[in-house]
């Protein structure tokens, strides 16, 4: 596996997009920490921007990389290598390089300006979101051979998780406001990795005091180590399900 990852990484690094992405995150983080007064404020603004841009970049980069590597994979498929190995090398190559960019671009400034548990959760969330959205990107890419269609599906997924989903949740909360919805919202949060990440970090900031009764419930759940463990376990599921599904499709498709 390492051999193939080596060539995938080599291809990505030559690409230079990854360098631009790192610089962009670095600039964003340093700028936000210097803008706001307290480090907490900086973290909050950083969280909102990270949860919008990291999924977008991960999913678009993942999809275009997959289609651009099609020839590479075709070349390898006729060699004595397992297909699942080719697929996982591509997946790990892309996710690891994007995660590394995130760790440098966001992790380092957080460590400098706002070290602590909240910062750690922010970085962990960002890494998980990267792995999840690259997995979704690969899923979109194995579903269709058409590059334009694949990128279309990927962008739709991003729209759904980053924007539409929150609208739907708000709509449900307003429509059923007369009923006790605390546990329902908890489930709804778990069904969107972006929201899950947001709640995880927010609850470690003081702002959670303003989130009312649901916020208090969240706090009682996610405040404990046990709850945080469950949240990260759900994140792991969010990585595994699309990766395994797309690997299965990739193994059975004609090249």
């Amino acid at each position: 596996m390492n051999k193939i990852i080596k060539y995938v990484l080599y291809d990505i690094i030559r690409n230079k997009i990854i360098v631009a992405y790192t610089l962009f995150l670095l600039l964003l983080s340093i700028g936000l920490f210097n803008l706001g007064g307290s480090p907490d404020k900086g973290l909050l603004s950083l969280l909102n921007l990270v949860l919008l841009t990291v999924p977008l970049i991960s999913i678009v980069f993942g999809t275009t990389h997959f289609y651009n590597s099609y020839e590479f994979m075709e070349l390898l498929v006729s060699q004595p290598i397992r297909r699942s190995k080719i697929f996982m090398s591509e997946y790990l190559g892309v996710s690891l390089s994007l995660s590394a960019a995130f760790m440098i671009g966001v992790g380092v400034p957080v460590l400098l300006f706002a070290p602590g548990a909240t910062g750690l959760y922010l970085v962990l969330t960002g890494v998980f979101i990267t792995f999840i959205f690259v997995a979704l990107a690969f899923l979109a890419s194995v579903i269709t051979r058409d590059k334009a269609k694949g990128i279309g599906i990927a962008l739709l997924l991003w729209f759904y998780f980053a924007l539409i989903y929150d609208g739907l949740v708000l709509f449900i909360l307003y429509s059923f406001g007369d009923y006790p919805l605390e546990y329902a919202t908890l489930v709804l949060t778990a069904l969107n990795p972006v929201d899950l990440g947001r709640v995880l970090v927010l609850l470690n900031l003081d702002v959670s005091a303003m989130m009312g009764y649901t916020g208090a419930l969240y706090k009682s759940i996610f405040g404990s180590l046990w709850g945080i463990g469950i949240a990260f376990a759900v994140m792991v599921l969010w990585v595994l399900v699309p990766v395994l599904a797309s690997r299965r499709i990739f193994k059975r498709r004609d090249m």
Partner: protein
Amino acid sequence: MITIENLYKSYGKLQVLRNVSVELGKGKVISIIGPNGSGKTTMSKCILGMVLPDSGDIRFNGESVLKKYAYRSQIGYMPQIGKYPENMKIRQVIEMIRDIRKDAAVDDELIGLYRLEEMYEKRMGALSGGTKQKVSAALAFMFDPQVLILDEPTAGLDPFAAEILKGKILKEKKKGKLILITSHVMSEVEEVADEVLCLVDGSVMFYETISDLKAQTQETRLSRAVAKIMNEGYKP
């Protein structure tokens, strides 16, 4: 060496292979012919595991190849149109494949004959179709495999390069290898092949030695013999 049993494959509604069963033995050059879209490439890709059959089995030295991968170390494949990562250099592609097949013996005769070393630093994307074919040929023969699958190997090669390839094919045949060649050029088939496997609409129309074909049709040239059979329909 390779046994194909009741192979079926369809791409959606299009049935490409219908009940193909053949036995391909070692030490022979077998030419797979047939009209465009008759399933020649699909059949070779099935042997390589690049295309997965709907039903049927392919056995390599007695063992089924379905869901396996290690057997591919015994196969050299030259695709019809070689597709390579555009921003890799020739040297990198060759080194990568060598890296993957680390334990195999290396035969770089074709690299030398095609003078590929002089172009090692060129990007694959910048190469002409013919040069890409040369790289494909060099890679197919590089690990001294027992089986060679060459999909229209001389299409796109200049006559000089095509001669080198034909010479190499005959040389490898003497070592007792099984060589499958799909081709449309009958004169070339006649030059290198011993047997002809003809696919029409995804099923085997005939599978005969060239001398038998000529004797049956009382023709001296293979192209005429094949045309005669195609026109009259095949009567074994």
